[in-house]
């Protein structure tokens, strides 16, 4: 649609965590402090981030979302999830014609203030071109990225998705962005039986195989991250009592705010300031409100340049205590370095390898990624986190496509969906854990991360001595 330039600057997705989930995964019995979480899916939040970053972590306590017990016991524990195809059009279960290209759709903002997400498509294209060249595509089919622009306006996603499905006949949509955008269009995918896979929003409802089998989540849920923060404060700063919260006034920030407003008092903390900010503000007023409460810890439920400005303004205002940072701001080059040495005593849930982090300079996956971008993506800046995100999403898609091709019935959309619901692989971008989801007990693909402190002098995260959070397999299924 037309430019959304005049709109408030950054908006991020993640629907407000429904009360049901909070209840379900809230205060049930704590067992074991550090839960492990498999990680998968794409990584760092680049520029205007939002849900684009990777790896979820379940609550350090037991299952993050609905308790496992509520899953119908009829499914045998290990049996793979089969997506119902009775209501699907015929071509959903027909294998792709020989030689026909596999069209993967990316529906997201290409224009407007959030155009920064458009580069995800570039990352996907790099990996697809690599597979096309090196392995001749998947099962003999060349891979293609079809981009549709919805300028991040939910009202535009409807026609864009319709065109992708009916016009371009995409085989699957990967990494669609915008919670209202995904929520508004998943019905279309369900009707046309086209996978809406690894959506790039952190709302837990995307792990609901029973009601919405054609939609899977792709990145960690902010609800879960907020819970990890509470646990982390309890563990690392036992004497902290007063907490101040800054949240972005949109669905992304609201998810953090709602979860924290409930989890913090439950854990015995006093919320001394709970300030929301618009996309237009420069945070000077908001940080003054935060500091006025004399907090021991500040939590920044916001993203992009707001993370940097929160850190700088807080330090300038004399606050020396710990600041917790959203994983969407994990990118060192874009958000931590600009904060300079103000970024001491800052903790972020590191979920993915950051291509601009010197610690991963010699990591084989990162090196391979940077090489691939060099050969297959001229003019694409490998250091931008969203590109690595797109690259990683493509990796997972190809993994699913290969597995789907081997299923009986060949490479059909239904089999691809079943493959999306049965990941068990190590994604190149994840710093640990396994991208595992089985559509029965664990509907969340990314549940691994490390609460690590950022070292401003070394310009890297001290992942080694961070608190590992791995709740792989305990994500459960969405019971909202």
């Amino acid at each position, binding site marked *: 649609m*037309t*430019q959304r*330039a*005049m*709109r*408030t*600057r950054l908006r991020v997705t993640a629907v407000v965590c429904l009360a049901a989930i909070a209840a379900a995964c809230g205060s049930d019995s704590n067992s074991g402090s550090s839960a492990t979480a498999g990680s998968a899916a794409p990584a760092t939040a*680049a*520029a*205007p981030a939002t849900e684009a970053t990777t790896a979820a972590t379940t609550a350090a306590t037991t299952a993050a979302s609905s308790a496992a017990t509520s899953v119908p016991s009829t499914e045998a524990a290990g049996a793979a999830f089969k997506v119902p195809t009775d209501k699907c059009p015929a071509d959903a279960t027909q294998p792709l014609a020989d030689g026909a290209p596999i069209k993967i759709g990316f529906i997201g903002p290409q*224009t407007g*203030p959030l*155009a*920064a997400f*458009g*580069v995800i498509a570039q990352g996907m294209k790099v990996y697809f071109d690599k597979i096309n060249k090196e392995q001749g595509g998947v099962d003999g089919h060349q891979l293609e990225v079809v981009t549709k622009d919805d300028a991040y306006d939910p009202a535009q996603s409807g026609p864009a998705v319709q065109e992708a499905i009916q016009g371009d006949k995409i085989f699957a949509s990967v990494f669609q962005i915008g919670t209202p955008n995904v929520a508004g269009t998943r019905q279309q995918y369900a009707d046309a039986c086209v996978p809406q896979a690894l959506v790039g929003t952190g709302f837990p409802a995307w792990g609901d195989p029973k009601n919405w089998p054609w939609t899977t989540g792709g990145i960690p849920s902010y609800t879960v991250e907020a819970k990890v923060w509470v646990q982390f404060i309890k563990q690392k700063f036992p004497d902290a009592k007063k907490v101040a919260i800054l949240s972005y*006034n949109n669905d992304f920030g609201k998810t953090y705010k709602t979860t924290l407003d409930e989890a913090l008092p439950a854990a015995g903390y006093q919320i001394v300031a709970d*300030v*929301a*900010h*618009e*996309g*237009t*503000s*420069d945070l*000077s*007023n*908001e940080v*003054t*409100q935060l*500091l*006025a*409460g*004399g907090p021991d810890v500040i939590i920044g439920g916001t993203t*992009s*340049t707001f993370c*940097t*400005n929160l850190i*700088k303004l807080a*330090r*300038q*205002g*004399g606050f020396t205590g710990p600041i917790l940072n959203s994983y969407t701001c994990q990118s060192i080059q*874009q958000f931590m*370095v*600009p904060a*300079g*040495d*103000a970024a001491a005593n800052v903790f972020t849930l590191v979920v993915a390898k950051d291509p601009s982090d010197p610690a991963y300079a010699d990591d084989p996956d990162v090196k391979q990624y940077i090489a691939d971008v060099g050969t297959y993506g001229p003019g694409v*800046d490998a250091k*931008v986190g969203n590109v690595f995100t797109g690259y990683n999403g493509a990796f997972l898609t190809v993994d699913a496509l290969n597995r789907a091709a081997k299923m009986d019935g060949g490479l059909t959309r239904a089999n691809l969906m079943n493959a999306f619901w049965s990941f068990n692989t190590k994604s190149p971008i994840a710093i640990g854990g396994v991208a595992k989801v089985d559509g029965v007990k664990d509907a969340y693909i990314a549940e691994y991360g490390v609460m690590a402190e950022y070292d401003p002098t070394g310009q890297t995260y001290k992942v080694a001595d961070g608190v590992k959070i791995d709740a792989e397999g305990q994500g459960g299924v969405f019971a909202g």
Partner: protein
Amino acid sequence: MGILAVPGIDDKFFNLTLFLQNLTNALANGAVYALMALTVVMIYKTTGHLNFAQGEMAMFSTFIVYVLVIEQGFNVWAAIVLVVLGSMVVGAGIERILIQPLERRSVLAPVILTLGLFFILNGGAATIWGTQPHSPIPAPFPGKLDDKVDIITNRVPHFFVTYKAIGVWITLVVLVLLLNLLLKRTKLGLAYRAVAANAESSLIVGIPVKRMLMLGWALAAGIGAIAGAVIAQYRNVLDFNFMAAVLLFGFAAACVGGFDSILGAVVGGLLVGVVETFTPALFTFVGSELSLVMVLLVILIVLYFRPQGLFGSKRVERV
């Protein structure tokens, strides 16, 4: 410690340092809005138009300063002066080539033209410099962490003023003085004000009216260029969208102050800054994110009593 528990007044209000810090933030933000309001006034005074592309022109200039300073290693102020002159030429050019031919043929056409320019500049900047935020940001004023004057630091929150906030005030004061000097003391300024007051008799006394319109746009573009660099540092953001919101507040400030008054732009900007800062801090019945709505409410009230803004001149309408 709320001495006076006035209903609806947030008890933190009487925390002295919070009040002083809020006031500083308000005046600094207000100065930012005043700078943009000045660009709005400069164009409105002679042409009577609103330039929707003003923010994007300032953003574009700021990116050129970024290229000169960060990539080419220029001194920041040398780069700013260079870019200001360039921007003035471009501003005058836009008025002469695009706006003037439209001037006579329709009232709304220039508005749409500036909208077109908005998309061109916004999309152009995103194409050339990408959509990611850029850093480091050129720093006309010392902007490191401890470049600030701590006044009261034993209370919570600390009361301090950063050098870059002082820088914004200095920029505003200097620009207003220069503008006054130009308009009040020079022949060019007299001619510009004559065209603003009565374009036809300006023609009769021999003033090249077209060139004065171009001057209006040039001044606006020049001020926009300096403002862009100073605002980018103050708000610590430099991406292809950072001026869009600031311009809206600039429009609001110019509207409150009166569209054709420089003093109005300054007072209007500071008023908008104060209202934006103090509504959430003062009143609890309005969510903190609604300060923008409160600003607009204040404008409505001011305009209701003075339809031409605080300092605007009342245009007599002849039948």
